[in-house]
């Protein structure tokens, strides 16, 4: 007999459409299903035959919230396939776009999607009367990130001037300088955001899983590197299939993933647990100040982790801009020859590791595409977390239990549209 059943339809304050089904049974493993109901979009199928220089603008439309991450992963994969080597300036501008994506998404998730639960509100509007200052700050932090993306990519959602081999347009030095000033001035806001999220030690869900990020020798996870887990596994990004294994589940329009047959976590805790030593000094100082011990195996600390990353990425973007200001910036696209080949890369999208892979024919047309999104990587771990939460669920009232489940899922900041049915095309 079922002890309790939860059937949460259309989880709110996440991107896309998904349901959670949980059935607790006497003396049996609970049944947990993350039912991904988002409609099918078939990107990998309709992308075939498109030109290599059309890929990034199409794939950007997978997701509005992390459009820059998809676009840049696509550009890097195309370049890997055709052995195109863009100039340093291009890599740095792209890093700024990726940072913008991470900052904007983190600000949105922390303040608008996760925070209402912690203060007993259903949305940010209900928070307004009591938390005017926090909401205003959130809007400032979000706007700054949007303006950064717009400055580099031409638009905050679906950038347009980043192309294969370079940029059709670049910002002027004075634009970069004034952006640098604003990023610098945002540091106190970013610190206040960390202190706010540091106040919520409850609820907790501590379960040692595996943590995965794109690790680079010099920088905190972001733009390129190896796929590295906290348990010491390491493969080059191009060999992701040897590490991440996907499987179909009958109740979801998305594939689930495992590493060594077990669930794993990507996102802020994935990055922090794998690369905490690479945080900026400011971010390290604040991590200590709020008492976050790393590595952390408490999944609810994903929210605080994002707040810490907001500060880190601010610092990193200032460094990049300083470097760009010493160069003579100009619209620059390297010459290249279209050729056949395949390329696979991984970048850090706001929600974690994002893999793009393409294969092209000699005319540069897409033969096959494969995308694994961070949300799809996390589904298996979400289910494992829900299972381990089941003793607690039985003690809570129905409403409290449902709220707890919603909060758990929202801690992952899932992006359901992103996750839907990305699998290798034949």
């Amino acid at each position, binding site marked *: 007999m079922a002890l309790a059943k939860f059937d949460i339809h259309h989880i709110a304050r*996440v991107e896309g459409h998904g349901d959670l089904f949980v059935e607790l049974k006497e003396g049996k493993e609970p049944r947990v299903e993350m039912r991904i109901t988002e409609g*099918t979009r078939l990107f990998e199928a309709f992308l075939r035959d498109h030109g290599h220089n059309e890929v990034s603008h*199409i794939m950007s*439309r997978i997701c*509005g919230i992390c*459009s820059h991450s998809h676009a840049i992963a696509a550009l890097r994969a195309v370049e890997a396939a055709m052995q195109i080597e863009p100039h340093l300036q291009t890599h740095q501008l792209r890093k700024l776009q990726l940072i913008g994506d991470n900052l904007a998404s983190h600000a949105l998730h922390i303040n608008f999607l996760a925070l209402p639960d912690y203060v007993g509100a259903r*949305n940010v509007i209900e928070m307004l009367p009591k938390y005017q200052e926090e909401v205003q700050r959130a*809007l400032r932090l979000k706007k700054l990130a949007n303006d950064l993306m717009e400055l580099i990519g031409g638009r905050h*959602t679906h950038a*347009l001037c980043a192309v294969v081999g370079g940029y059709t347009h670049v910002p002027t030095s004075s634009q970069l300088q004034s952006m640098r000033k604003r990023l610098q001035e945002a540091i106190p806001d970013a610190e206040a955001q960390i202190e706010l999220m540091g106040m919520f030690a409850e609820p907790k869900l501590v379960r040692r899983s595996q943590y995965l990020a794109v690790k680079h020798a010099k920088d905190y996870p972001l733009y390129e590197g190896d796929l590295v887990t906290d348990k010491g596994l390491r493969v080059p990004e191009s060999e992701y299939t040897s590490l991440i294994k996907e499987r179909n589940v009958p109740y979801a329009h998305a594939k689930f993933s495992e590493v060594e047959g077990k669930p794993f976590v990507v996102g802020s805790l994935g990055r922090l647990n794998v690369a905490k030593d690479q945080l900026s000094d400011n971010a390290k100082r604040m991590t200590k100040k709020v008492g976050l011990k790393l590595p952390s195996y408490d999944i609810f600390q994903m929210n605080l982790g994002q707040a810490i990353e907001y500060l880190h990425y601010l610092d990193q973007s200032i460094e990049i801009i300083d470097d760009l200001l010493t160069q003579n910036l100009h619209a620059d696209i390297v010459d290249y020859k279209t050729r056949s080949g395949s390329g696979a890369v991984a970048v850090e999208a706001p929600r974690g590791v994002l893999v793009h892979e393409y294969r092209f024919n000699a005319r540069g047309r897409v033969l096959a595409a494969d995308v694994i999104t961070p949300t799809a990587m996390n589904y298996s771990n979400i289910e494992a977390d829900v299972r381990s939460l089941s003793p607690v669920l039985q003690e809570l009232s129905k409403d409290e239990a449902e709220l707890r489940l919603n909060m758990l899922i929202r801690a992952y900041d899932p992006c359901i549209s992103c996750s839907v049915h990305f699998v290798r095309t034949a």
Partner: protein
Amino acid sequence: MSTGKPKPVVALYGLTCCAGCQLEILNLEDDLLDILGHINLVQFRMGSSATHPGPYDVCFVEGSVTNEAELTRLKELRENSKILVAMGACATTGGVNAIRNGRNIEEFKQSVYGDASHVNTFPQILPLKSHVKIDYELQGCPISGQEFVEFLTALLTGAEPREKNYAVCVECRMKENVCLMKEGELCLGPITRAGCGALCPSLGFPCEGCWGPVPQANVESEIDMFSQKGASFDLVVRKFRMFNASAEEFMKQLKRRLNIEWL
């Protein structure tokens, strides 16, 4: 905006899409709190766990209808809304979702899912106005936040929202840009509806047509221009279909001019 009357009940809905158009509204940081002061935003799944069954004074819908459940949902929204607004390319011209149209959907599904028996999706993606009566459309992929504010302001003040019935080229020339067509690029600006402020050509990238067809678009002369620049048949078709595979004004003429059966 007048505040004497009760605030209109407004809902935001998403069908299958990237949610970028809703995000564009959330991204109106400077105006957001002001806007929320003038409307009663009751349904916004992306931002709120509160729900409201309607009726709504104004309902904005982004995304495309890809299955029966979404079609039912859209019909319910129509019945529950005084004013129904289709928002973004997905909802007005099919957007990238409609690239599948005319292709072999069974093969598509199979290539993505392997065993695709559980995947239920329409072979054709149509603009929302082909499914239900739509009162207004906001174009773009994504929509422009500024156009959204202008539109809402007009509604709230009882004015008729203004349609831009001229092409991106007009905005582009006002900005005194060098024309990219003259530099050999393939730009859809001459036949695309204005509204974005000629965003792409101003940044050195040719227009891809995301605002959809301008009324009385001269598609034939655009196709000829592309061909003169050496564009292959395939490339012309892909350019027109990227955001507009479900825009009848484009597809009819493209089909006729290039004699393509499957479009």
